[in-house]
C-alpha cells in the first residue's frame, strides 16, 4: 500500500501536470495583457498590445492617476456605489429570502404555495422580458437611486434565492424546531437562533452567487439608476469605452485593472468558499 502512495505520480500524470501548467499560463494572458497595457502610453497600446512596456512606452502609474477622474466622473464614486449596492442587495436577499423560504417550507397555505410556484416560474424568465417595465416601475416608486435599488435586486433575485434556500430548509429536522417551541421559543427566535445558524452553508453559497451577480451586473443598474448622477463600476467602464470619440485605452485598462484587483484579492481569501458555493449552488435540482 505504502509503495502505491509513493508512486502516485505516474509519468502520464507528470506530463499532464506540465500540460496544465502551460495551459494555466495561457489562461492568464488576458489578465496579464491588462496589467502591461495599463502601464503604457495610449498610442503604444494601439500600436502593439502584446509588447511589454519599454523605456519609451512606460508611463508608470500615470494611467491610474488619469483613470481616477477620467471621463469627468470620479472612479472612486462608482466604486463606492458598487460596493454599497452589492453589500446591501446581498444582505437583503440573504435575510428576507431565507425567512420566506422557511415560512414557505413550514406553512402549508395558499399564499405560500402561490409564492413558491411564482418563484419557480420567475427562474425561467429572462431579464429582457421585464427590463423596460421594471424601469418604469422603479422610476415611479423612486427606486432609482443606489440606496433603494437593493429592493429591486431583492425582487428580481428572490426566485432563485428562495428556491435554493427551500432545498436546504426542507432537509432540516423538524424535531429541533419543535424542541425550541416546547422550550418557549417564538417563531422569530426559533428562526434567528435555531434555523439561521443551521443554514450557514447555504447562506454562504447563495451569498456568493448573488455577490457575483450584483457586483458584475451591468444592465439592471444601467436601466434603473439615474445615470447622470450614479454609476457603478461596469457602467463606468462602459461609459469610458463606449461614449468617447477617442478612447484612451491605457487609462481604460488602468480602470479595468482597478476594478479587477479587489475581486482577485477577495478570491484569494475566500477561494474555498467561492468554489464550494458554486458547486453547491449547481446541484440544486
Amino acid at each position, binding site marked *: 500500500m505504502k509503495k502505491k502512495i509513493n508512486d502516485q505520480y505516474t509519468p502520464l500524470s507528470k506530463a499532464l501536470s506540465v500540460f496544465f501548467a502551460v495551459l494555466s499560463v495561457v489562461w492568464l494572458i488576458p489578465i496579464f495583457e491588462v496589467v502591461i497595457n495599463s502601464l503604457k502610453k495610449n498610442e503604444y497600446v494601439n500600436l502593439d498590445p502584446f509588447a511589454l512596456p519599454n523605456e519609451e512606452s512606460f508611463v508608470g502609474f500615470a494611467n491610474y492617476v488619469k483613470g481616477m477622474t477620467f471621463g469627468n466622473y470620479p472612479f472612486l464614486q462608482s466604486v463606492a456605489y458598487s460596493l454599497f449596492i452589492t453589500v446591501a442587495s446581498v444582505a437583503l436577499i440573504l435575510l428576507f429570502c431565507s425567512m420566506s423560504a422557511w415560512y414557505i417550507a413550514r406553512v402549508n397555505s395558499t399564499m405560500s404555495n402561490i409564492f413558491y410556484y411564482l418563484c419557480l416560474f420567475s427562474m425561467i424568465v429572462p431579464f429582457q*422580458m421585464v427590463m423596460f417595465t421594471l424601469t418604469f416601475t422603479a422610476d415611479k416608486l423612486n427606486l432609482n437611486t443606489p440606496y433603494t435599488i437593493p429592493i429591486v435586486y431583492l425582487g428580481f433575485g428572490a426566485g432563485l434565492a428562495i428556491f435554493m434556500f427551500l432545498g436546504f430548509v426542507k432537509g432540516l429536522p423538524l424535531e429541533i424546531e419543535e424542541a425550541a417551541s416546547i422550550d418557549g421559543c417564538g417563531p422569530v427566535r426559533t428562526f434567528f437562533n435555531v434555523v439561521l445558524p443551521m443554514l450557514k452553508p447555504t447562506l454562504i453559497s447563495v451569498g456568493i452567487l448573488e455577490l457575483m451577480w450584483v457586483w*458584475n451586473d451591468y444592465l439592471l443598474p444601467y436601466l434603473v439608476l439615474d445615470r447622470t448622477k450614479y454609476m457603478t463600476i461596469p457602467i463606468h467602464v462602459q461609459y469610458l469605452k463606449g461614449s468617447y470619440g477617442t478612447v484612451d485605452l491605457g487609462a481604460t485598462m488602468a480602470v479595468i485593472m482597478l476594478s479587477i484587483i479587489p475581486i482577485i484579492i477577495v478570491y484569494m481569501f475566500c477561494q474555498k468558499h467561492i468554489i464550494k458555493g458554486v458547486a453547491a449552488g449547481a446541484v440544486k435540482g
Partner: protein
Amino acid sequence: MAKSKKSSSVNLVQRPIKKWAPLFILPTFAAFLIGFVWPFIQGIYLSFCNFNIPTDAKWVGLDNYAKVFKDAGFLNAFWNTAAFAVVSIILINVLAFFIAYALTQKMRGANIFRTVFFMPNLIGGVVLGYIWSMIFDGILKNYATYLTANPTYGFWGLVILVAWQQIGYMMIIYIAGLQAVPEDMLEAARIDGATGSQTLFRVIIPNVMPSITTCTFLTLTNSFKMFDQNMALTGGMPSIMENGAKINATELLALNIFSTYNISKNYHGVAQAKAVIFFILVAVLAITQQYMTRSKEVQQ
C-alpha cells in the same frame, strides 16, 4: 403515530409562524411584486401596445408581433444566437468535462490549476468584452484587419471569450459530480477488467448525468441570455445590408431587443413584443432541456 406527530408539528411550528407572516414573507413578496410580477404582467400587456411610457399606451393588437417577424435584424439575431448556443454548449461542456476529469486524477498542482481556470468568472461581462476586443484587435492587426471588420471574427471572438469565462465554472460543477461517483463502482469496473473508455462511458458519465444536466442548462440559458459580452465585444457591429434592410451582423437576441428599444419611441412596443417572444423561447428551451437530460439520469 405518524398522524399525531404531524398534528403536533402543525401546532408547535406551523400555527405560530402563520401569525408572523407579515414579517417573514411580506417584505420579499412585496419586492417580488415590484421587481418581477408587475413588470411581467405589464410587459405582456405593453407588447400589444404602441407606447412611449406606460401611461400613453395605445392598444394595437398583434401589430408589434407582425413587425417582429418581418424584422431582418431580429431573424439574423435569432440565427446568430442559435448557432452561438450550439457551438458554445458543445465547446464549453466538452472542454470543462475533460479538464475536470484530468484534475480529479492524482496530479501535482491540480488545486492551483483549478483556481486559475475559475478566475475569469469573477470578472464582469462588460470588462471581459473590452479586454478581449483589445486582444483580438491586436492579433488581427498583423493581418491588416480588425475585429468588427467581418461578422465571422465577431462570432468566433465571442465564442472564445465565453469559453474562457465559463469553462472554469462548469469545470467546478463537473469536479463536484466526478468526486461523487461511488468509489466501489469504479473498483468493480476495474476488477471486471473494464477499459478506460468503458469506465468513462459506462460508469462515470451515467453517474455524473446530474452535473451534465446542470451544466448544459446553464450554458444553454447563459448563451441565449448573453448580453454584456456581446455589447462590449462588438456591439453588434459590423452593420451590413441584407435584403434592403440595415442589420447588425453580430447581434444576439438580447442585444437586438435592447437596441430596438433605443431606435425611437415608435419601437418601444416592438422591442417589448420581441422580449415576450424571447421569454417564450428561453422558457421552452429550458424546460425541454431539463426534461431531456433528466430522463437520462440514473437513480441511486
